[in-house]
Every structure is written in structure tokens, then in C-alpha cells.
């Protein structure tokens, strides 16, 4: 084990190592050659040259379109969407080409790429630097969506994507970038796509969550423990396809399930999780699946009290869990 590293450093390391390992990896995005707003891509251009670390024009569709095309002739593209909020101009390419090209050519063309997307709120970024919109993409088989919550996973999942053959959306929560550190193995490792992880074992209820909300959920679980309620925290890690086995195993074990996500509620990821759990584990449930989520308002507002109102925190999660435990 080496020095403890932050989540963003882990991402940076993964890129450095995969650039080294695979000469066909390249990075295309806005404002990345100098290291980017958060220094996620720090040092890549210096080390691997401007031919592999390309600042793109301000145009998300072509970032994704060009990467997809380049993957058809043997490149291994890594695209960066600077803020998740700005993925919308690229939605056309993601939905119509990335998610569907393999399918509609019956595998004749095999696009593969990884799109890193910096998302999430709680940093005073306001409306357009806080969106947490992975939900839009979960409706698209053909895509895979990963969303690490720890430095270890951040590195391991990014490496898995860069070695995989599919089209990956890799969401990274900016609030995690520098708020947690972890010692990482010296040796090469990956975290497999498609596998959830139990972050905390528990008996009385299950929390299904991912990304930054894992931290919040663990804090809430800690407090519930003191009230005598033992919470299991399942970190989904991959949102598409979901690790149904792990989700249902925990649901069946505890019989009470909460979903915790930062994004707004209606048609958020919690909708699918609740639908799935009640569908497959109905007889095991002692209470309805509870969604503890952001409010159904269009976008995270800027003013601090409004942002606080939007963001979940351990207090709000505990409130929900108490209700669930008492059901």
C-alpha cells in the first residue's frame, strides 16, 4: 500500500497508468490539456503529448462523436465532459450512436469508449455546476454506467472501463474529489463493472446508494446504530446494468429498503430500484421501499440555503431511515 490518495488523484493515476499500458488510449475534452478545473488530467499532456491529450473545441456532441468514430479504427477513447450539466448537447450522440451503433449494425461495428462526467452538487456551484443526471442514461441498454464512491473504486473502475469493450459513462462526484483519501494497492488492479459492494453489513435495513451519497449514508447508518438500528449500506458502483443479485440479496436479508440519492426523485434512479425490489422481493419486504432523494425541483438553486435545502445530508437521511425502521 502506498500513500493515501484522494479520489481525484486516483482518477488521475488510473489515466496515467492506462495511457502507459495502452498506446491507443487518448483523451478528448474541453480544457483538459492544462489539467482541467480540478486537475483531474494533470500531467497527462506533459507525459504523453498533445497528440494523445487533445483539447477539443467547445462542442460536446463532436467530443463524443469523434471518440466513437475513432474507436472503430482501433483507438481507445476517453472523453471528458467537463460538467455533467453540459452533457445535454452530447445526448444525441450518446443516445443515437454510442448506445445503438453496435446493436443496429448487429455487431458489425463495435464502438467502445469511456466518457468521464464530473457531476454533483453541494459545492456552491449553483444550477449548472451541480447536476447529477446519470438517471437520464439508465434507460439506455447499450450503455454501461459506473459511479465510484471511493478512491479505490475510482481507480479500479476507470481502469476496468479503459480495458473493457463497451461504451461506458463514468460519473465522478466533484464533492468527493478531495474529501476522502485512501491507501491504494501498489500493484495493478481493476474493479469489475457490474458488481455492487456492501460497504457496511447490517441486519435491520438496507440502504441502496452510490457515489457521494455513500458517505452520507454511512454517516447516517452510524447514527442509526446508536439508536439500535443496524443498517446495511450497498454501494451500487455500477448503475447500468444493475447488480440485481447483490441488491436483492440485501433486500431479502433486511426486509426494509431505502434508496438514497442526491438527484431529484421522480424518475430518479430510486424509481427503478424501488420497482425492482418490490417486483422481485415483495414477499420479503416488511415496508415499502423508501426513496430518500433530492426534491422534485428543476435544478439545484444557487443561494446557500436553497442549495442546503436541495442536498441530502445525514440528518435528512436519518429522518427517513427512522420512519422506515418504525414502519
Amino acid at each position: 500500500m502506498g500513500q493515501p490518495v484522494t479520489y481525484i488523484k486516483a482518477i488521475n493515476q488510473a489515466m496515467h497508468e492506462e495511457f502507459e499500458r495502452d498506446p491507443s488510449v487518448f483523451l478528448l475534452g474541453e480544457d483538459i490539456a492544462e489539467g482541467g478545473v480540478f486537475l483531474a488530467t494533470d500531467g497527462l499532456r506533459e507525459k504523453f503529448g498533445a497528440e494523445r491529450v487533445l483539447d477539443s473545441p467547445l462542442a460536446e456532441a463532436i467530443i463524443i462523436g469523434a471518440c466513437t468514430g475513432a474507436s472503430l479504427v482501433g483507438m481507445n477513447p476517453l472523453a471528458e465532459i467537463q460538467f455533467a450539466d453540459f452533457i445535454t448537447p452530447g445526448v444525441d450522440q450518446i443516445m443515437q450512436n454510442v448506445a445503438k451503433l453496435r446493436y443496429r449494425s448487429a455487431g458489425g461495428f463495435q464502438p467502445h469508449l469511456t466518457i468521464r462526467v464530473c457531476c454533483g452538487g453541494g459545492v456552491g456551484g449553483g444550477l449548472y455546476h451541480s447536476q447529477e443526471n446519470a438517471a437520464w442514461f439508465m434507460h439506455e441498454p447499450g450503455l454501461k454506467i459506473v459511479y465510484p464512491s471511493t478512491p479505490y473504486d475510482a481507480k479500479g473502475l476507470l481502469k476496468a472501463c479503459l480495458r473493457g469493450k463497451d461504451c461506458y459513462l463514468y460519473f465522478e462526484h466533484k464533492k468527493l474529489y478531495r474529501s476522502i483519501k485512501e491507501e491504494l494497492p501498489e500493484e495493478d488492479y481493476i474493479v469489475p463493472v457490474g458488481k455492487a459492494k456492501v460497504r457496511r453489513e447490517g441486519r435491520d435495513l438496507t440502504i441502496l446508494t452510490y457515489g457521494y451519497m455513500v458517505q452520507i449514508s454511512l454517516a447516517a447508518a452510524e447514527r442509526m446504530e446508536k439508536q439500535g438500528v443496524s443498517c446495511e449500506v450497498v454501494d451500487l458502483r455500477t448503475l447500468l446494468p444493475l447488480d440485481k443479485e447483490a441488491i436483492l440479496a440485501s433486500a431479502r436479508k433486511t426486509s426494509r429498503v431505502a434508496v438514497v440519492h442526491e438527484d431529484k426523485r421522480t424518475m430518479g434512479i430510486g424509481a427503478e430500484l424501488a420497482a425492482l425490489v418490490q417486483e422481485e422481493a415483495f414477499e420479503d419486504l416488511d415496508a415499502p421501499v423508501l426513496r430518500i432523494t433530492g426534491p422534485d425541483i428543476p435544478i439545484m438553486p444557487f443561494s446557500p440555503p436553497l442549495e442546503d435545502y436541495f442536498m441530502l445530508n445525514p440528518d435528512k437521511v436519518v429522518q427517513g431511515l427512522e420512519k422506515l425502521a418504525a414502519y
Partner: protein
Amino acid sequence: MTVQSGKKPSATATKTNRRKMTQPRNNKGAGLSQAQLLEMYHLLLKCRLVDERARVLFRQGKFKGNHYSAVGQEAVTVGTLYGCQPSDWVGPSHRDMVAALVKGVPVKLIMAQLYACVDSPDRGKSTPAHFGSPEHNIITPASTIAAQWQLVTGVALGLKMQKREGICFAYAGDGATSTGAWHEAVNFAGVHKLGIIYVIQNNLWAESVPLRLQTAAKNLADKAVGYGMPGVVVDGMDLLAVHKAAQEAVRRARAGQGPTLIECKTYRWYGHSEIDPARYRSQEEVAAWKKRDPIPLFEKQLAELGISAGSVKKQFEDEINREIEEAVAAAEASPYPDPAEAWDHIYAE
């Protein structure tokens, strides 16, 4: 009749692709040998006949979806793609089904596509208009206009990064030039000096929308200056003129000098699709353009070069019609995919 017989056959071009280079009598022939000129003529006829056959088949209810006829636009297709190499890539539009023929795709594959049977390259997944062939580097296009324009731009980027042989051809109509996807792609190629030829098939209409409601630009090729690349306007009915313009663009692309935007002024004889009676166009307009049919026009050019098209036309047509009928018969005989195939090819792993 083969098709990859460019002037500089690539390493991958087969021996049979090479033809004796007999220069025609004057230099109007765009530096092409008599054999090449006849080959282009053959392709022109082939595009026409396959397309017309597809129209009939659609009207007979032989296949679903729709057919977007390119009849009238063949000189653009043949003129730009003729001489391309197997290592070159094509990003076709919805109207470019017959472009595959110029890239060497047998009619059989195209008919299989129309019939959505297991013998089509995509095993019935995509619609007839969205023919692609991995083997021939023809990207299966999405229907969202200009989406393929972006993809093939990406291919050009990849080829450049890999220092791999091959250039790209992107096709789209006048309507497509209004899309953001189109703009982003061309701009990107300009920055990275990609080896790509952007071909605008300006047939004056996007469905029922006339060009004047599409853009206020005088020529669509005028847009090129905004991307720092040459823009060329060419008579899209004149096969040799198109080919000459394209060859200069191809030369630039192969030499690493970057992309070119070529606007071909052309016309589709029929409606936007087979279900469009196209009443929005005046009969005079249609008649005037039909007078400029690229086939007789090329026959005249051949005659001027001392080549008699008449002496081969019947033979070519027979050859082509035989291939078409065999292809139709094969498609008719080929089964639909099994419903379970709906689950194939979602993920690679």
C-alpha cells in the same frame, strides 16, 4: 466489373482491380483511362438500375420502412467515390444506399438489407435506407441527420492518430447543413486537418422545405471558409466535374493537407421518399432537372472523348439486371432473423 480501381491502387486492392490505363483522346476525361471511364459509366447505370428496382419493390410491398431514392443524384455518388480504396471509409446519408455499389458492395447485400433478412449485414436490425457494411468500411448510419457526419469525422481522427492508411467520405444533404452536429464535425475536422471529404448533396429540398428556408447562404460551400478549409461548388449532374473536384480533395486528404467541403448541386427526381408525392415542386423545375440527367450527360462526354457508350450500354444493363434479379431472388429466399436475435449485440461483453 470491379470498382476499387483508383489511379493509385492501394496495397489492399486486388490485382483484378487494376486496369490498363488507356488515356482517352483528349484531357477532358479528368485523367482517366477509357477502361476507367467505362467503369464509371457502368457504376452510374448500376446506381440507377438498383435504385429504380428498389422503388418498384417498395411499391410492390416487398419491404417495409421506406425508400429514399437517389435517382438523379448518381453522378455525385459515383464521381466522389470512384477510385476510393478499400481502406477508405464512407459515412453515408439516408439517400446513399447505392453508394455502397461504388465501394464494391454486391447488389445481393443491398437487396438483403431491403428485405431485412438474415443475409443483410445487420441481420435485419436497421432500415433499408441505413445500409452499412463493416467489411467495406461503410458505417451503418443512424437516422438522426448528420449523426454519421460526426462518426466518420471520428474515424478520420482515428486513422490520423493511428497513422493508418485511408481517408473518409462523408455525405449529407442541404438540410443537414443546418444541424449543430454537422457544424461541430466540420469545424473539428478543420482544426485537426483530418483526411476527410465532406460532400453536400444539395438537391434544393429537405423533404418539402426549400433551400431558401434552410439557410440564407448563397452557396452551401461558402460555409467552408468558416471552418478554414476549401469549399468547392460543382455541378452535381456532371460526373467528370464532380470527379475532378473530388480527386483534388482526395489528393489533399491523402497528403495530410486536411478536409475539403464539396457542394454538389443536384436534384432528386422523385419525392423525398416513396410515400412523398412531392407536390411542393413545380413540374417545370422537375422537368428542367430531368433534362440534365447525369447519364445521357456522361454519354455525351464519353462520345466527345471518342468512347461510344451505346456499344456497351445494353451489355452493361443486362449484366447489372442479372445481378439485381439474382439478388432479389436470394433476398426473397432468405429467412427473417429469429425473434431471439433481438437480444444480440447490445453489449460486447
